[in-house]
């Protein structure tokens, strides 16, 4: 009983164990897994989900949810490639495009936060509605997929400054931001806003401000994810990121954050996103008939979610 209690307060340990087990199985099935190139390409695939899941964690921690992240990723992508094209490419154009993308991501998050926290709209339906709007705007900016980014962009993204690939630098930077945020009083206030909203309100916390900031962070991380995906695809796609909202919520839950709000951590979500990705890898390399892969992946994901919730359960 004490051991279970120990695990309950350190849920990420369970997720980490699952991750290590999956990694070992994957290594056995795919002997060349631990080579720099394979690890790098794996990380490139997982990175967008990891980044979106980090942002989603803050919103969920505050007791809300953001179903619009996938559309934010698409909108940031098309704005970035369009601004780069409008500025005529080059290093200046790329930097301008990235800046515009980040501004758009944060603006989308601020709008979500304002609607949910200031106007007191229900988070699920509201972010579904804003997701439709952001998706519509993405199609307005760029009606069809295309518009390649200049080589400066994707070459830099694929390069390895100081011996480490850029995807790893991005992940390290994201983890650093998470660590910096984790040390601020904001995170405690956010957990209070999600866990015991009335009590938090009565102690005088500025709830609206805190929840809006969480949505803005979610938008910012969605923009990071979009810029990473753009480095991968090297072009604009108004339908990019469709599956990211659901994947990010699964990763957040697997990482031990309670969907009801109030407890959890962004580090856990990073582990959760990695677990999701590794499950896909293991199924792919296990040589199952192709027809059955989606079913097995669905079953394992459901079991993992159920297991995560069971361990986290407090009576």
């Amino acid at each position: 009983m004490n051991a279970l209690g120990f695990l309950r307060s350190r849920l990420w340990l369970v997720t980490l164990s699952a991750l290590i087990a999956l990694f070992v199985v994957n290594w056995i099935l795919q002997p060349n897994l631990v080579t720099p190139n394979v690890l790098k390409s794996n990380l490139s695939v997982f990175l967008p989900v990891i980044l979106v899941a980090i942002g989603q964690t803050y919103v969920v921690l505050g007791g809300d949810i953001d179903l619009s992240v996938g559309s934010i990723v698409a909108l940031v992508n098309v704005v970035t490639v369009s601004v780069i094209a409008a500025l005529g490419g080059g290093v200046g154009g790329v930097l301008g495009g990235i800046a515009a993308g980040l501004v758009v991501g944060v603006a989308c998050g601020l709008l979500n936060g304002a609607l949910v926290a200031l106007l007191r709209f229900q988070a699920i339906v509201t972010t579904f509605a804003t997701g439709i709007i952001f998706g519509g705007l993405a199609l307005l900016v760029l009606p069809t997929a295309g518009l390649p980014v200049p080589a400066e962009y994707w070459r830099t993204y694929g390069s390895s400054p100081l011996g480490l690939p850029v995807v790893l630098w991005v992940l390290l930077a994201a983890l650093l931001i998470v660590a910096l945020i984790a040390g601020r009083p904001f995170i405690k206030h956010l957990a209070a806003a999600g866990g015991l909203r009335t009590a938090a309100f009565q102690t005088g916390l500025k709830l609206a401000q805190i929840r809006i900031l969480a949505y803005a962070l979610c938008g910012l991380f969605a923009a990071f994810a979009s810029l990473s995906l753009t480095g991968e695809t090297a072009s604009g796609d108004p339908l990019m990121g469709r599956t990211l909202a659901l994947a990010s919520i699964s990763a957040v839950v697997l990482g031990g954050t309670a969907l009801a709000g109030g407890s959890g951590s962004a580090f856990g979500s990073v582990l959760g996103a990695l677990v999701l990705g590794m499950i896909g890898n293991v199924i792919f390399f296990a040589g199952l008939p192709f027809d059955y892969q989606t079913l097995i992946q669905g079953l394992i994901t459901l079991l993992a979610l159920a297991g995560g919730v069971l361990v986290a359960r407090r009576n």
Partner: protein
Amino acid sequence: MNRIKTILTDPLVLATVSILLLLGIGELLSPGFARGDQIIRLLVVSAILGMVAAGQSLVVIGGREGIDLSVGALISLGAVLAGNAMSGSDGGILPAILVAGGVTFVIGLINGLGVTLLRIPPLVMTLGMTGVVQGGLIVLSRGIPSGNAAPSLMGFVNRPLLLGLPGVLFLWALLGLGMWFLLRRTQLGYAIYAMGSNERAAVLTGLPVKLIRTLLYGFSGLLAGITGVVVIGYTGNSFVSVGDQYVLPSVIAVVIGGISLAGGSGNYLGVMLGAIALTLLQSVLTTLQLEFWGRQLIFGGVLLLLMLLYGRTKQLRV
């Protein structure tokens, strides 16, 4: 003044006004929009949405963040199972309904058990189940469209049966009556509202809350499966993602219908009107011949407007 505000923001009034307004706009934009046969077509589409939304309503009213996001996959499953059971012959209709309804009812019960016994949040449980059912559908049909609707079923959905109305509309009306009876005239109905508005109190009065909640998810699965049978009757054949488009509209119809996502309040009549209003809105936007992005912007904007009118949560008080 307050009284007027109460009447204007009553979901039933608002949905009715929206329906009349949208009909008017549609008729202005394209004469013939509000013609009898056109309205019947719109009602058939609304009926399909309304049937899924009935299950969604039950789950939401039952509270504890109740929501069923697996209805889309279950509609697809119902359609594919029914299509294969019928394979175009009238004799297969009854087996089709039994197979589609039975399997989706059981899957719904599993959702319910996950939510009640394992205490998995409904959003997560039903999303996870969506992945499993979609995987099962790929195994079942190998990703290609399979099965055909029986001629009688297609006639029931698309051709006039009585008073010029297709049979499916009578089925929907019957469902509406059944929902009213269940929620307002049976002990089970009162229990659903009780557990939705105050779970602790409901448990303390001795209500079998877990059993009821499990059943509600079972009903939602069953209704989605039956909707799948109607969908294949509407389109003629089925493919593995035919139900996906109904998931979020079913939640929105519930919200438009005045059922709070917090649970414990609302009724199905509002949801029926909500389903009609939502279908009309989509139809008017199509008539406008706007580009896809324009339709998306207006659709999203209208949803936000509806939230502003009555989708707001209570203000916190000291």
